[in-house]
């Protein structure tokens, strides 16, 4: 692959990844947030394809297919189903000022850049150069987990985190062996399904899915 085109593609894809994550923190609608997750998954699949083609890996199409299917179709669909089952479409109002959430997100992205830049090394290739974007996705996923109250958004946060990790993994090393990729996709799917079941049970038991109300167990 042409190196210039490669750099351009990596830059574009990581730009989309970062933008979707910021938009997820910005917005309040669960449905839109899940939609953005699907876009993020597609961007991730594009990243896998780009990195794989550039490295000339034989199984690239297979891995791309798996990532696209899981991250862009199956997981968002499963979450949408949970959201529909419990009938929640909007985030519950938080006590945190939305501007603070966004400024926090900006700060975390900066931290990710500061951590990620030395990792890229002195003369980085385009993929390594984009590593900070992966780290910021991880931190933004964390941030979502911290600032949101609805159980569904917690799931979104977890998946953003997971997408960030996948981004780092593909950018840094071109991904792990196929078996491991398969296994980890399956694991994430199982976790999401289990949490989906728990969310539905929670809704049935308490009539809401506000995780800040989960405070019966404490010392």
């Amino acid at each position, binding site marked *: 692959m042409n190196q210039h085109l490669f750099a351009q593609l990596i830059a574009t894809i990581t730009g989309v990844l970062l933008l979707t994550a910021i938009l997820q923190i910005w917005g309040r609608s669960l449905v839109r947030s899940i939609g953005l997750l699907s876009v993020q998954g597609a961007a991730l699949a594009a990243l896998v394809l780009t990195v794989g083609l550039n490295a000339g890996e034989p199984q690239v199409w297979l891995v791309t297919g798996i990532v696209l299917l899981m991250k862009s179709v199956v997981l968002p669909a499963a979450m949408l189903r949970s959201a529909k089952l419990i009938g929640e479409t909007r985030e519950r109002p938080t006590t945190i000022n939305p501007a603070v959430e966004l400024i926090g997100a900006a700060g975390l992205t900066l931290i990710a850049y500061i951590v990620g830049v030395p990792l890229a*090394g002195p003369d980085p290739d385009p993929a390594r150069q984009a590593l900070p974007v992966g780290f910021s996705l991880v931190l933004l996923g964390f941030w979502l987990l911290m600032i949101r109250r609805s159980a569904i958004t917690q799931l979104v946060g*977890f998946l953003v985190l997971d997408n960030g990790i996948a981004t780092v*993994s593909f950018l840094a090393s071109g991904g792990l062996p196929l078996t*491991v990729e398969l*296994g980890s996709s399956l*694991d994430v799917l199982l976790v999401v399904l289990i*949490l989906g079941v*728990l969310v539905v049970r929670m809704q049935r038991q308490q009539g809401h899915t506000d995780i800040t109300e*989960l405070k019966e167990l404490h010392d």
Partner: protein
Amino acid sequence: MAALLWLPLTVPLLLAAVGFAFRASYWTLLLPVISAVVLLLTGVSLIGTVVSSAPVVAIEGWLRVDALSAWMLAVVGAVAVVALWGGAPLRSKASTSIGSFAALLNLFLAAMSLALVADNVGLMWVAIELTTVTTAFLVASGDGEHALEAAWKYVVLGAVGVAIAFLGVALLSAAAMGHSEAGVSWTALMAQAATLDPTMVQLAGALAVLGFATKAGLAPMHSWLPDAHSQAPAPVSGLMSGVLLSVAFSVILRIQAITDAVVGPELMRTLLLTAGLLSLAVAAGLMLTQTDYKRLLAYSSIEHMGLLALGAAVGGELAIAAVLLHILGHGLIKSTMFVIAGRISAATGSHRIEDVHGLLRARPDLGAPFLLGTAGLLGFPPFVTFFTEVAIIVAGFTRGLGWQMAVACALLLVVFAGVTRQVLAMTLGAGTRAPGRLVWWRRVPVWLGLLSAMALSFALWPLSPVLIAAVTALGGAQ
């Protein structure tokens, strides 16, 4: 010998299928116990093999059993026998789908075995995540009214923690890029330690330890542990406290070995010392005022994981060998204690310490082992925990970690005060003889667990070559 390596993976899987097929039958509860026995026997025979000759390898190095994995397999088997045999629910309490419960327990055992025998770091990660997945519904199936809340916190924190660890794994594989073909294996990483990129390994090691420490219940990522371990059914609590934490911890030991080989021991020592002392402090503080005896046991697990972290931070043959032995001792005692705690709560219908009085008089079959087990957890001789704790502390002093060890001793004293007060309040005092005595075969595992934890103290000599081989498998542990 490679066939032996497959047993701990295939037998639980097969038995899980059987359990699921006959899920209405009570006898399916026997299946996980069989798996546990298989794990124990395979572990012991693998120890024999790997100590005398080379590690056992299968499918092109994806699976590999060295002395450490063999030892951990045996530990998992031994602890699982006690927890699953002793903790099996009464026939009257068993639900109609008891077989699914048994099947999940079997899957859980298979996931732990996979985590131990996987040489590929990615595969090991997948297995650790699978332990979260398989235990999620086990925790949620607890009879406590807050089991759902506990399960939610457990899965979210566990999954996030392990995801962070995956970041570490990905960076490790990036650091090893260009060195190995088929992914990253522990062996390959150890062999090429000198050529790995130090910056990358530094960050990878820190992230991986942070992630797996969540799973191992080390402070400050411990907050899920007391909830999950107190709400889960007794055998599940016993297994999770007794071995799941230690399996995650054994992964930390391997990461430590690699990081130490690349960037020197300071980074990991600092991280583990902080986590260890913090865990001890958190446990000590919250055990003093604890009102729930299952939570008391859960915090005791955090305390012991803290001790293990301190031992790993100290490093060296003595400390690491003590850590490995402590894993076994603590596992046996802790699973026994959770089994007894489950029976106490079945007898009294309460998890609150103030609702339990005069256990020694009322239910000597529960009170006596409970008191004895507490002594084991606090590290009284002749329990093996006494010797291992002393070994860790002494090793710490000799390696110049004086004040940290002094702080640890002080915190252990606080733990001692807290636990003694609570447990004495439960066991001593007036009580009327309560009806209900367990049949003999339900009492056997409890005494088996406690007595073998004592017997280990007198088996140090035959065990030492095994432990030393395991330490060597960790690269000699600087």
